[in-house]
């Protein structure tokens, strides 16, 4: 574990030194802001109309109309953006040769992987924190269900860690950043929607695919349902890819 903090600090510094982060942050926040605005605007429009029809007003609630789509859209934007954040992590070091420092300084491979992983997650956590003002804005007009919001953010954080671990893995496979990003994006997208095939295959495989799908597990969080199975799934997913990344790094010891 030696070296986590050293690598973490270096990666964090390099994230903020590189323009990629600022571009990604700008696009992310612009998109999220747009989604938030449109769902809130739609909600207020419906509320206005529902004032006249009591039946409709019973159907309306903030969680379904604003929070769930909000978290859902953030997760999709993350799906697009995380590969861009993680593609650099190993691919660039391999390309430029700086990986030689990481492998010849007295820091362990595990430290390197975890340092890079935690730095990636920290950067995304910062992006998520930057969307919090939207929630405070809701507080100004209505009484938002804070436990649901907290559940949603926990889900997003877990999603980020799962995405980053997969992105890190993709980056460890290649020297080319574009390939790393494409691999990560393809894998994430597939795992996101793999549950859709549920109806096409048999019930056994179907429920397995549904379990494998990142979307299934995220939906619960977005609705404010906190299920330990979902938390467990994300943690397992993250651990699996961190472990695989470590194995890839260690493969230099036996590959020709």
């Amino acid at each position, binding site marked *: 574990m*030696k*070296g986590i*903090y*050293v*690598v973490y*600090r*270096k990666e964090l*510094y*390099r994230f903020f*030194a*590189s323009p990629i982060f600022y571009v990604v942050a700008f696009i992310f926040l612009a998109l999220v802001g747009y989604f938030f605005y449109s769902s809130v605007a739609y909600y207020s429009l419906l509320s206005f109309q529902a004032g006249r029809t009591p039946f409709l007003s019973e159907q309306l609630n903030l969680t379904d109309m604003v929070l769930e789509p909000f978290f859902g859209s953030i997760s999709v934007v993350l799906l697009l953006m995380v590969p861009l954040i993680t593609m650099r992590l190993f691919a660039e070091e391999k390309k*430029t*040769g*700086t*990986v*030689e*420092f990481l*492998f*010849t*300084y*007295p*820091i*362990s491979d595990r430290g390197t992987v975890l340092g890079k992983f935690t730095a990636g997650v920290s950067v995304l956590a910062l992006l998520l924190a930057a969307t919090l003002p939207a929630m405070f804005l809701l507080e100004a007009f209505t009484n938002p269900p804070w436990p649901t919001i907290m559940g949603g953010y926990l889900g997003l954080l877990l999603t980020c860690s799962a995405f980053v671990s997969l992105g890190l893995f993709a980056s460890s496979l290649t020297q080319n950043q574009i390939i790393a990003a494409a691999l990560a994006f393809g894998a994430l997208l597939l795992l996101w929607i793999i549950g859709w095939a549920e109806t096409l295959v048999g019930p056994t495989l179907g429920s397995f695919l549904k379990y494998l799908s990142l979307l299934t597990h995220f939906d619960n969080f977005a609705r404010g349902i906190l299920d330990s199975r979902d938390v467990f799934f994300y943690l397992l997913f993250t651990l699996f890819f961190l472990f695989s990344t470590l194995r890839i790094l260690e493969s*230099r*010891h*036996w590959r*020709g």
Partner: protein
Amino acid sequence: MIEVDNLTKLYGSLVALRQVSFRVDQGEIVGFLGPNGAGKTTALRILTCFMPPTSGTARVAGLDCQQHSLEVRGKIGYLPENVPLYLDMTTRRFLSFAAAAKGVSRSRSGQEIERVMEVCTITSVAERLIGHLSKGYRQRIGIAQALLNDPAILILDEPTIGLDPSQIVEIRSLIKQLGAERTIILSSHIIPEVSQICQRILIINNGQIVATDTPANLTAQLQRNLQVYLEVEGPRAEVVQKLEAVTGVLEVKPTDGESSYLIETSRGEDLRPELARTVVESGWQLRALTLQDMSLEEIFMQLVTDEEAGKEQK
């Protein structure tokens, strides 16, 4: 200090090193000399634990590079070939990362960074982005990071490549100075450099060590014969015949020039007076007569080409 036994490294079917063994004692400055692609970098990378050998062992300070990787890495300061650096970091920031990675305590870190920057004369670019610096500065930043935490062993892969002549002189004297209390291995394909800095030379070619000795011994050992360069005006065939008759002369080779010859003589005798007398007595004009010393370059070429010729015969 460094013990390498029967080291073999294959890249797929390509043999980078075959059965290489050598020792380096504490306080020695050893030079790895060889043409490009000879296996210098591979050998150094195995010693720094960057990659494992296919077979054989490498031990640093009694510790196996593979089993005690982290301990070994802690004892070595390494300058990789081509000096990869984080171009988006400032010099000081990079060195502080390197210092932390090498386990320099935070309280000592600032002082240690100042020290290595002074030694490598890069204090003036401490706050500049590495990406904006010239090759010479980058090279010195690479050396500076290797010096952090005062490692007992320095492994420098082509430390002077890409530097201008005055910087080369600076770096060479720096290495000599550092070698006073450290064990240093450096690789190079520049022969004068190695013969100036190093106490011992390992000549490596095609993945094998073809010679190892001090620069002086290597020169002496390989100068089996002395060569005399002679320019004389006279009929060629007759000149050759007469000169070959002189005792001690092994061979007379006419060279491309109109009237010049290279004469191989057995070692330990200076035959110049004899040769001069023969020429003058024959009534020819003597234009030039010089003893040719075999330079390390020629020895190197001879070793490397001998090896290749030997292989072709097989």
